[in-house]
């Protein structure tokens, strides 16, 4: 029995080592990829490019469900992006609050009658489109509740331009975000089907006129951990995956797509969280099955600021939802696993996700339990347990340091020394509790999935917080969100 437990514990240990090595490979690709991404951006004059006819027009799709408190500020901010031709389509997904009415009042919208919508993708029929010629770039679509994916599909049906970009109603885009992404598209329109943006946490930052004016770290610990987590995922992970064209997710908070490609795969899937990962998987599948050259790109300098959940309840609910969505997507697309036909995606991305993301809780927990059991039988072997814990900890920390270096090399958003010290300290703390909670939440998500719990979970919106400093400073509302 002891031998068995120890054997299993050792396997779990090797598993963690393998994760580290693979992470490292990905991080290496990130370093390789980030150079040309960043240099290309530094040498580009976005101010000028954003006014050039050559940049393709973009439709921004903003699904909104019960957003009455924040929607006005966010739409105002979205209307002032630095881009020559774009439209903002807000889709009111049958909100139970006054989302639609506050929009109508704030922008003096009137029903738009002189346009007939073609349904190129199935979605809940649209009730009414609102518009005001004084805000020529804004459309508000009202439709019965049908979920986030359904709202996006409705937005696609109304959109007038060849590129679409999905944005969460509680996120703020930097002024240059759109043109930075469009540049990535323009460099290779033949192959680019989707581009992911970089999502950063806005908690703690000062927001003025819908623009993040002063970048600071969050003061509360939950958002602080998430800041580091996002940095690790977006910088350390996604840049590397996009470098080998194996990106599996483009954040629902901010991504850009070629509209025709999204229509080809039948739009967003309905009725389950994780629609942002799902659309990317579908795009990979479609392009690979039809043997078309393509890439899912990532643009780390196009930044979207989002408000992270700052309470345990909302955060855990969000993470359980992600766990459910991830499991659902993996089960649905298991046929792609290890099939040479699906190239990097089938041979690398999918196995990686299944083994190291989806199954992660099981390996780690069981490994830990096995070793605890082993040590419980013979206390003299406490060293084994400690070794396992130490490897786990160092594994996480080395990755965190890797992504911090990347941030420092390429972006330098947090300019102060004390921010860096704080980030380093929290990177270490993160693996003493927070990370383990994440594993637990994922497991709970899987249990929910098996119980066929299909709800969206807790999502609350609070009103705008006034920052203590500066009269007109505002912070965006708190919310749970889909990354």
């Amino acid at each position, binding site marked *: 029995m002891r031998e068995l437990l120890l054997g299993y514990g050792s396997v779990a240990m090797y598993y963690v080592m393998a994760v580290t090595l693979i992470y490292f490979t990905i991080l290496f690709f990130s370093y390789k990829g980030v150079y040309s991404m960043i240099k290309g951006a530094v040498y580009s004059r976005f101010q000028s490019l954003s*006014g050039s006819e050559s940049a393709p027009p973009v439709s921004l799709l903003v699904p909104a469900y019960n957003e009455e408190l924040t929607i006005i500020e966010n739409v105002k901010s979205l209307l002032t992006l630095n881009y*020559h*031709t774009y439209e903002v389509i807000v889709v009111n997904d049958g909100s139970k609050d006054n989302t639609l009415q506050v929009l109508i009042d704030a922008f003096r919208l009137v029903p738009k009658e002189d346009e007939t919508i073609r349904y190129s993708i199935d979605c809940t029929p649209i009730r009414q489109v609102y518009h005001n010629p*004084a*805000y*020529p770039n804004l459309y508000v679509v009202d439709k019965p509740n049908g979920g986030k994916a359904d709202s996006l599909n409705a937005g696609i049906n109304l959109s007038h331009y060849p590129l679409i970009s999905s944005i969460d109603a509680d996120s703020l885009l930097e002024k240059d975000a759109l043109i930075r992404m469009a540049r990535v598209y323009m460099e290779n329109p033949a192959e680019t089907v989707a581009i992911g943006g970089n999502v950063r946490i806005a908690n703690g930052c000062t927001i003025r*006129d*819908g623009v993040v004016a002063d970048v600071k770290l969050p003061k509360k610990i939950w958002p602080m951990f998430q800041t580091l987590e996002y940095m690790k995922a977006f910088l350390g992970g996604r840049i590397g995956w996009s470098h080998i064209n194996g990106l599996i997710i483009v954040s629902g908070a901010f991504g850009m797509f070629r509209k025709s490609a999204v229509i080809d795969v039948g739009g967003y899937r309905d009725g389950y969280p994780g629609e942002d990962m799902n659309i990317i998987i579908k795009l990979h599948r479609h392009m690979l099955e039809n043997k078309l050259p393509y890439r899912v790109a990532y643009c780390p300098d196009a930044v979207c600021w989002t408000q992270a959940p700052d309470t345990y309840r909302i955060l855990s609910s969000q993470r359980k939802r992600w766990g459910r969505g991830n499991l659902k997507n993996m089960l649905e697309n298991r046929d792609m696993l290890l099939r040479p036909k699906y190239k990097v995606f089938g041979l690398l991305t999918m196995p990686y996700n299944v083994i190291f993301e989806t199954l992660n809780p099981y390996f780690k927990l069981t490994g830990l339990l096995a070793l605890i059991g082993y040590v419980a039988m013979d206390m003299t072997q406490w060293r084994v347990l400690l070794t396992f814990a130490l490897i786990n900890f160092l594994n996480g920390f080395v990755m965190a340091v890797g992504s911090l270096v990347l941030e420092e090399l390429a972006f330098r958003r947090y300019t102060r020394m004390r921010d860096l010290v704080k980030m380093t300290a929290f990177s270490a703390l993160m693996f003493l509790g927070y990370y383990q909670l994440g594993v637990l939440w994922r497991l709970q998500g899987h249990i929910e999935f098996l119980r066929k719990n299909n709800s969206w979970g807790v999502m609350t919106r609070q009103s705008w917080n006034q920052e203590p400093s500066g009269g007109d400073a505002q912070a965006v509302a708190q919310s749970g969100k889909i990354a």
Partner: protein
Amino acid sequence: MSKRLEAKRLNEVMYEKVVERFWRSDESARGEPCGILLVRCPQSFEETTREIRTRLEAELERSVEAVTVANREAAFLLFGVAWSRTHYLALRVKQELMRLVPGEFAIMIADAGEHAERNPRAFEKMADLFAQLPEAPEIVIFQEHVQPGGTQSVLLVDGDEEMRRYLELRFRLKGYRVLAAENGPQGLDLFRKMKPDVVVTDLNLTGMDGFHLLTRLHREDPNASSKIVVFTDNRVEESINKCFELGVADYITRPFSPVELEERIEKLLQ
């Protein structure tokens, strides 16, 4: 009271020198440019002015006229030296001052203008302004201009601080009264309060989208008594058409020629 008196005397001595030069010079040298460098330093005045003079003479390779009053203010009259060169010499002089009397000086540049010998008032104004200058290591530019249309005002709405400062500088030198706003709402506010003659606005603003600002301006001022000039990076045909539909008087794209920008604005104001 005493300061005022000194100032008077500085302009008087400057004026005397200019008139003297006028009578002494022949026809061809009349109407030549004359840059003026004014320096004030309360400490070790004589030594400092001597150093500056040597410096200027070395730079120009000829002798330089200088007048001083009350052992603290000096004016260097650089006959035949153009405005741009004077400005550059001021940089040299400032460097020297920083070495000799760090922080304890005021420096201003001006030019005598054409027919200075007939215009003692210009010197008076110049000396008055100089007397009021605080001691700070920054070169102040004095320009008394024949103003094209009285005090016409220009409202600049642009998010880029450097561009705003540059245009402000240029328009000031052209004799306009300049108002500057860094975002849409501020621009609209200033427009309501000040009713400027010309608005120069970017389309890419914070706080309010550029087209919406134009709509609001149009609504505030349906008879277009203020001329609106769009000055932007947006070079798309449709945007240009949309702006003209919103009652814009001119549309100028970047990169731009500042001379052309000024000419087009002047034309609108005629």
